């Protein structure tokens, strides 16, 4: 009697196990992942620290000219030996936020690739059994602060960093929207709560030192 009960129990267990094994892949097939994210491959660019073979006043003049030419707005500061500027607009090429791969046409079709820092993109996301089209926007506000100080014989040390404030806005077809903000500095990375990681490419920092002769 007891061996009969054990046998029945074993059989029931095997049936449940087999059902579970079949059920899991079936569920996985029914709901393939629509989005995949790949983080930026590079490293965050470092803060500015360079010794230039020019006197401080000439260096300041060149930095101001570089920043103006690139379309940045200079901040009116009374602090001597300092240049500060702001930027507001597209996030590329100033930051890298990796790539979003969207498998809207199924897992076998080639995915749609969207830059994580793209100014505007429409991507499909899933909520339960529904697939929704979302408009994703990314903007960048940057603040660049540079300090110059005389070093040795007619040389100047240039130090500084940029502050990056990235705003990601998402709007659904139903009018729902969400806005998130992250900030990081030269040499750092920043991540949104649900994924995207951004880092500075070094373009802002390069703008500052463009055309400045490095001291030997």
């Amino acid at each position, binding site marked *: 009697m007891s061996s009969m009960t054990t046998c029945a129990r074993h059989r029931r267990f095997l049936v449940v196990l087999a059902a579970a094994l079949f059920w899991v892949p079936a569920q996985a097939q029914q709901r393939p992942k629509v989005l995949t994210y790949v983080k930026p491959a590079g490293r965050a660019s470092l803060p500015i620290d360079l010794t230039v073979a020019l006197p401080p006043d000439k260096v300041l003049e060149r930095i101001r000219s570089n920043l103006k030419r690139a379309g940045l707005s200079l901040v009116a*500061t009374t602090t001597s030996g300092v240049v500060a500027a702001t930027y507001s607009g597209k996030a590329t090429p100033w930051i890298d936020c990796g790539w979003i791969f969207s498998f809207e046409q199924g897992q076998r079709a080639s995915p749609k690739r969207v830059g994580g820092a793209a100014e505007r993109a429409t991507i499909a996301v899933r909520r339960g059994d529904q697939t929704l089209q979302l408009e994703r926007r990314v903007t960048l506000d940057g603040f660049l602060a540079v300090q110059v100080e005389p070093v040795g014989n007619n040389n100047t040390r240039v130090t500084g960093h940029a502050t990056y404030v990235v705003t990601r806005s998402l709007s659904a077809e139903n009018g729902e929207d969400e806005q998130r*903000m992250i900030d990081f500095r030269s040499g750092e990375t920043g991540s949104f709560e649900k994924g995207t990681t951004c880092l500075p490419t070094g373009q802002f920092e390069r703008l500052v030192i463009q055309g400045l002769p490095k001291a030997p």
Partner: protein
Amino acid sequence: MKRLKLYYAAVRALLIGALATGSIAHAQESSIELSAEDRFWLEAKAADTTEAYQSYLEAYPVGRFASEAFRMLVERSRVGNVALEDEWPEPAAGALAAAGALATADLY
């Protein structure tokens, strides 16, 4: 005589304690002396306005709180945009089923 000695020890201990507390408090007061920049920043934070943060950035562009001041400035400008977006029309009844999509979707 024994009691007198005990009283004396207690009073002495109290006096030493009071003196020690006083010197610590004095040391703490002197150690939290604020710099001009710190005071400027605290005032900007207290005012919490675009103008206050802008003034801090102009005065201390390479200051300790410059990054935070800039973030505050950007937040304030974006808050203005959100307020405008709040005036968008209500979603249509058919679209209500999709409500909460942003909260639960796998976003990047």
